[in-house]
């Protein structure tokens, strides 16, 4: 039951305009990577692709892409929280609005809306989190893929 792993490429990209990510097209991953001044590795999994973006400061961002080229999930781990407005794109507004409507102070930020799920946890120097869209999970792929 091993997943097939193919390390396709490790690239270093020049700066280019930022793009949307969660829910956006795979091209936006490249834009995101370049905006983050980072290196990228692409890993093929059964039923989806993972773009791993390693930032100089040690932050690792993963973007999960459907066979149709759409970003269905993102995750992060590292010393700082990535720019969620950039990483979640238009869904960050829904995330923040849902958080604001709760007593969300000083705990793990969890939003489980019908489609959008976001979790943000950790502490100074060590953060982690993930987000995904239920409606865009590829067939046979569960939320556990996004980690």
């Amino acid at each position, binding site marked *: 039951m091993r997943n097939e792993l193919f390390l396709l490429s490790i690239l270093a990209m020049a700066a280019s305009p930022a793009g949307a990510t969660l829910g956006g097209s795979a091209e936006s991953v490249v834009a995101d990577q370049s905006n983050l001044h980072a290196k990228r590795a692409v890993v093929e999994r059964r039923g989806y692709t993972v773009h791993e973006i390693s930032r100089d400061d040690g932050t690792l961002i993963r973007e999960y892409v459907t066979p149709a080229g759409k970003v269905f999930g993102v995750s992060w781990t590292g010393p700082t929280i990535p720019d969620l407005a950039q990483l979640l794109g238009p869904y960050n507004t829904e995330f923040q609005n849902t958080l604001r409507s709760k007593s969300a102070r000083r*705990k*793990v930020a969890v939003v489980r809306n019908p489609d959008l799920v976001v979790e943000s946890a950790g*502490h100074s120097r060590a953060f982690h989190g993930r987000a995904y869209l239920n409606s865009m999970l590829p067939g046979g792929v569960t939320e556990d893929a996004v980690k």
Partner: protein
Amino acid sequence: MRLVRWRQSATAVLLMSLAACSAGSGSGRIGSGVTTTPPPAVNNVQPVVMDYGPIVNGQSVGVNNSLYTTVTICVPGTITCQSIDHVLVDTGSTGLRIPASLVMLSVPYLVDTGNNPIGNCVQYADTTYQWGPLVKVDVQMAGEVASAVPIQIISPTNFAAAPASCSAGGTPAQTVADLGANGILGVGLFRQDCGSACATSAPPAVYFSCPTTGCITASVPLASQLQNPVWMFPQDNNGLAIILPQVGAAGSVSLAGSMIFGIGTQSNNGLVGAQAQGADSGGDFTTTFNGIAHSGSFIDSGSSGYFFLDSSTTGLPDCAANSHANGFYCPASPVSFSAINSGPNPKGTGVPISINVAFSIANALPLIDSPSVVFNNIGGPNSGSFDWGIPFFLGRTVFVGIEGQASPAGTGPYWAY
């Protein structure tokens, strides 16, 4: 050197008269045959409290599971000081941060080599952030004084607005009402908020150089970064212990405890039976639950509950998404758990240290709706790891071993309990 620095502070001299009786002192030995008498032990016991919190517009903010203390800040080297109550004690961050509206001292903003003010951004897991310049103050707690400590003034009106990389995607928590506190005292495992990462490079959204034309990300030397005041004390500076009593299953409306500075430096801060487990460079360790190891776990007095794993792993139902207990677990009746925390021995030798921890999770909704604000049994989901929040501290003595500081348990960063 330390003695000289100590005596330079007039306030400190005053406080020395209040110092607890000298303990574990006697004669120290320098070189061969030369003896000197160490300074009398200072009062290292700082009261802490969990209660309804600071008052805003005539009403307590009433935030659950908040640990507070009173911090005195002074213009460096003077006795011009102010005390600020209900500052949140946070072992999950580093440095003192006070809303500008509360700061009455007149102290200049710290500038970089280009003579531009330094801006600092801190972001938290709940996606709130604080932004503002740094100033140097003397920080007093109990009888301890840290001199000329860089602290953050949160969002003064005469300072640049938060850069987009700090504010984008998050929510400001810069007022007393939004903070649920009159500031944050970060007394975690580290000496500085960012450390070498910000001294050697300029990570996004931490430090900024702020000329009038606008703030840009910048690297900042270690000494100019936000500091954990405890490691800057002349003594009792290798860590601290937080001691809180236990509460019943219904919680409590208030709780008084203490924060003791130093580890094994006086008669009142020995490890006794506590075991020490090291943390990694990010402050994390491994928690094993039902035989599965979860790296990325941590202890954090600034987290309001036990946040661990998820509903399917724990069997605990999530509270309704539309309830104000959203983000917590709401089991029909309390459920007991145990887990094992492990990390390297801070002495650098031997096998990893493993410590068994038992805890219980009750239905958060009726507890949060009750008059109580101190709970040892609320928790919520945190996929893939454990966040041992303030409930972990209740009924325990928890030692915070600061990075690079030697102690009888070894060298920090470590936790001991």
